[in-house]
């Protein structure tokens, strides 16, 4: 019955494609001239990036006094953006590594784009701590290295130093993982390209890959190992990011729930972002056969689960505060929900707790416009979550005389916009020059849900009558 039960699964890739068709479909996108829509999107992103760059140059030259920070709220907008972007990146690693270990075959259609998104998001994130240093050209001071300033080392007990190691390791591993996955696909482009510049570039970067079975065996082992290494890494990265807050003595930050809460939130926002990008890519590049409703459905379910975890974490924080007996802790949470930043708090709750609950319904999950809007709402909500955690915990100090408020300046807003410009510029370039779908991996799942018998079966099941025919010999 093993053979027969596969009939019940939906094929991952529609259209009953052969391997050649996959190469033609995916490489074909790169062969064609970019569409008008691509140019418009690219120029718009580039413009926003330019504005953000100007704002960054201005604040680096002038100093971070151009921000709305004060003595009480010493961390606000840029740390919010940093945590937001790092969190976005986490979904890429989750799809490429954790779902790989769990043998979730549907990931093959999404993983390439998701990994690219990770790398780009980490770049966007890294900009903020660099600017926040005030003198970014001295950023290397944060690294431990033998120096001539007497024995002088960084403080290895500080979570900010852990952060530097975690983020840079994360960036490097994500890039390695992505590149290893790309090698066979670059070889495919090389072999299809006409002699010329493109062929030479692809030949160089595909390392002379020839598809020998020995290379494939080692390749698969490496892929598995990298997945196994990246899985604890991704959890450690956001854990360490959360420790930037949790190891302090600020009420609202000093809590052990932060690491799991941050990791779930990261996956939540990251999945929403991947789904949003894939919905656009699917439409613009006509990838409907590769990124199907099955994929959308699976991703919506993960958003629902992680969204519910995040909602539970918000609730737990309140219960913990109420039970703690600490007036400061209790005050912070009451102030969060009903104080000056209550508007941000309720945006967060409605976007992150209420809106994903709609994904319980199959009707919602299968309505692409609705899903698209929800993904944007989730990302807005997750940005506000970080803002609420950071600003609302800081702005009411232990000492009422030092209480202060925070409003971002136009420079800070433009810098945030600039990172979105960078994000979309790089992502559009990626879609233009590299295969958005991992061809080698998709070829491996073409037969999923399509044994030779199933092929007939699916064809018949798709008939309008919807009657499930029993094929001869099927009962065996």
């Amino acid at each position: 019955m093993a053979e027969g039960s596969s009939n019940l699964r939906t094929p991952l890739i529609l259209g009953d494609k052969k391997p050649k068709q996959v190469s033609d479909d995916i490489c074909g996108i790169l062969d064609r001239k970019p569409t008008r829509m691509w140019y418009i999107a690219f120029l718009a992103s580039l413009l926003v990036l330019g504005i953000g760059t100007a704002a960054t140059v201005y604040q680096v030259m002038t100093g971070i006094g151009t921000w709305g920070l004060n003595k009480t709220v010493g961390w606000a907008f840029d740390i919010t953006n940093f945590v937001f972007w790092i969190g976005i990146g986490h979904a890429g690693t989750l799809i490429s590594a954790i779902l790989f270990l769990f043998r979730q075959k549907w990931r093959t259609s999404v993983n390439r784009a998701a990994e690219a998104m990770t790398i780009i998001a980490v770049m966007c994130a890294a900009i903020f701590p660099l600017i926040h240093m005030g003198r970014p050209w001295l950023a290397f001071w944060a690294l431990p290295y033998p120096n001539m300033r007497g024995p002088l080392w960084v403080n290895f007990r500080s979570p900010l130093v852990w952060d530097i190691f975690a983020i840079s390791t994360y960036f490097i591993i994500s890039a390695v993982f992505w590149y290893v996955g790309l090698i066979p696909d670059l070889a495919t482009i090389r072999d299809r390209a006409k002699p010329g510049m493109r062929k030479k570039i692809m030949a160089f970067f595909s390392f002379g890959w020839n598809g020998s079975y020995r290379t494939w065996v080692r390749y698969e082992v490496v892929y598995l190992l990298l997945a196994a290494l990246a899985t604890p890494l991704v959890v450690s990265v956001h854990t360490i990011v959360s420790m930037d807050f949790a190891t302090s003595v600020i009420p609202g930050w000093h809590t052990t729930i932060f690491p799991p809460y941050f990791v779930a939130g990261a996956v939540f926002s990251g999945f929403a972002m991947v789904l949003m990008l894939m919905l656009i890519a699917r439409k613009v590049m006509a990838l409907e056969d590769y990124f199907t409703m099955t994929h959308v459905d699976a991703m919506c379910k993960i958003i629902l689960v992680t969204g519910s975890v995040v909602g539970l974490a918000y609730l737990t924080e309140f219960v913990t505060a109420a039970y703690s007996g600490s007036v400061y802790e209790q005050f912070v949470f009451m102030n969060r929900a009903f104080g000056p930043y209550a508007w941000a708090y309720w945006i967060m709750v409605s976007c992150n707790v209420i809106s994903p609950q709609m994904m319980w319904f199959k009707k919602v999950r299968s309505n692409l416009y609705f899903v698209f809007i929800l993904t944007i709402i989730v990302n807005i909500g997750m940005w506000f979550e970080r803002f609420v955690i950071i600003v609302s915990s800081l702005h009411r100090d232990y000492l009422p005389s030092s209480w202060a408020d925070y409003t971002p300046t136009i420079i800070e807003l433009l810098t945030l916009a600039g990172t979105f410009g960078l994000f979309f510029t790089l992502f559009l370039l990626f879609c233009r020059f590299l295969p958005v779908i991992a061809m080698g991996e998709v070829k491996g799942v073409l037969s999923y849900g399509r044994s030779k018998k199933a092929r007939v079966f699916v064809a018949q099941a798709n008939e309008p009558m919807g009657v499930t025919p029993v094929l001869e010999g099927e009962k065996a």
Partner: protein
Amino acid sequence: MAEYGHHTEEPTVYGLIAEFDDSDNLLHAAEAAYKAGYRTMDAYSPLPIHGLSEAIGFKKTYVSLITLIGGITGAATGFGMQYFASVIHYDYDIGGKPFNSWPSFMPITFELAILFGAFAALGSMLALNGLPRHHHPVFNAKRFERASSDGFFLCIESEDLQYDTEATKKFLEEQGPVEVSEVLDD
């Protein structure tokens, strides 16, 4: 001319290559070739084919072991660096914490273990596979550009002890290929 060393103008033959139209046919041909006693051969495909390495008799890869060694080296480097800096070279009282505050050293130890492990994995994969290598004789084979798209190839190399131009060609043709052709060394 040929009697005095290898100054022949004739290119040498690298092997015979057979193209198949799907992975099952390639797998069967590889099994048959191994059974027939061929050992120096290679199969080329656009996607990994499970069971192929067992069929051709390639069993062990050291990639995992090298990765483990890399990971342990990374952990030792990470902890060693922090211990040296905080206990030996710059023993500075920070908040009354012990110089060897080892629990605080764990995150960086862990991160470096992962980093070195991944480098070892990538490096060993490339080194053992002999990559980057841009000039491989098999690229001279007819229609070989399909090996990265939808062609499945089995190449029996001329270095194989049993290699015989006529007999090997006949053997490959019996396996139901699309085409069998000779690959020249360059």
